């Protein structure tokens, strides 16, 4: 029986150029995908933060709606139709109620939110619809190349909390 010895040629253990190119391409695609994913994750978190702040701004306006009387709600111009707010809210305060305390002030900064407040007739067909108003609060801001807009609505009634409070 005759055995044939198969020994690799000199240099036969090395990779060919095609193998190297394919492996480099695969590694390149993997890294690009990985960092595209991370960048996308950051973008999602950034949008979530901006959304959260927008919700805070709209909720703040909605919350203070209950402080207005019915005549103020219906008075044209008493409640401004536009407003602005920043991502980092402005703060102006003194350390306590004492008049001798210094007043500190921190201006708002970061993303600028522009908002509108529309007070209109309530979308109800009942007889008491004249005693209700629909308040629509909208904020928009620039997020990268996109303009984002969010909206919140609430109903205000003439015979709601105000007569109870006053």
């Amino acid at each position, binding site marked *: 029986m005759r055995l044939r010895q198969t020994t690799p040629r000199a240099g036969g253990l090395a990779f060919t150029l095609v193998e190297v190119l394919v492996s480099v391409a695969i590694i390149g695609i993997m*890294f690009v995908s*990985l*960092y595209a994913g*991370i960048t996308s*994750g*950051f973008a999602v*978190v950034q949008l*979530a*933060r901006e959304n*959260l*702040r927008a919700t*805070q701004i709209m*909720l*703040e*306006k909605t*919350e*203070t709606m*209950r*402080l*207005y009387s019915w005549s*103020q709600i219906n008075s044209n*111009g*008493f*409640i*401004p139709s536009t*407003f602005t707010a920043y*991502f*980092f*809210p402005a*703060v102006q*305060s*003194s*350390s*306590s*109620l004492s*008049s001798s305390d210094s007043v500190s002030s921190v201006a708002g900064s970061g993303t600028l939110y522009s908002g509108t407040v529309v007070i209109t007739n309530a979308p109800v067909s009942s007889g008491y619809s004249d005693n209700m108003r629909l308040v629509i609060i909208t904020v928009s801001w620039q997020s990268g190349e996109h303009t984002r807009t969010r909206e919140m609505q609430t109903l205000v009634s003439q015979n709601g*909390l105000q007569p109870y*409070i006053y």
Partner: protein
Amino acid sequence: MTLVEVMVASGIAGIVFAAVASLSFYTARSFAALSNYVDLDQQSRNALDQMSMKIRQADGLLSYETNSITLSYQGGSLIYTYNSGTRQVTETVGGRTEVLLEECDYLNFQIFQRNTAAGTFDQFPVTSDTATAKLVQVSWTCSRTILGQKVNTESIMAAKIVIRKQ
């Protein structure tokens, strides 16, 4: 393998290892920042929800500092205090204190009367008598550091809360 080949291979390997190490470091820091932000945001949202719910149900404000307020609540007192040393916000109800928020860099309370100023969204601040306080405004910032740097981990909260029963 010649000396030149070894030197060239070592140089290329060094560059590749440096690139991989820096990318790994960047990736790890990014994931840490994302998870920190999500954690802080969840903590802040829970704190604001709890604080808003109880302040709304309070009967009125008893005392005020920019870092602490005391409210009349269900026949007892409700105290929120920010300690800048421990970076904690605590809630005390009926003599029982629990930590509401941790890793808080800044917190500010402001109080306002029920009267709103025409043409603005502002309320008149309380100047002397805390019993006239109708609106509590609170804002805070929490953050964590990664290797000594605050990297995209700030959680910002701001809210105006109307004391319903006042």
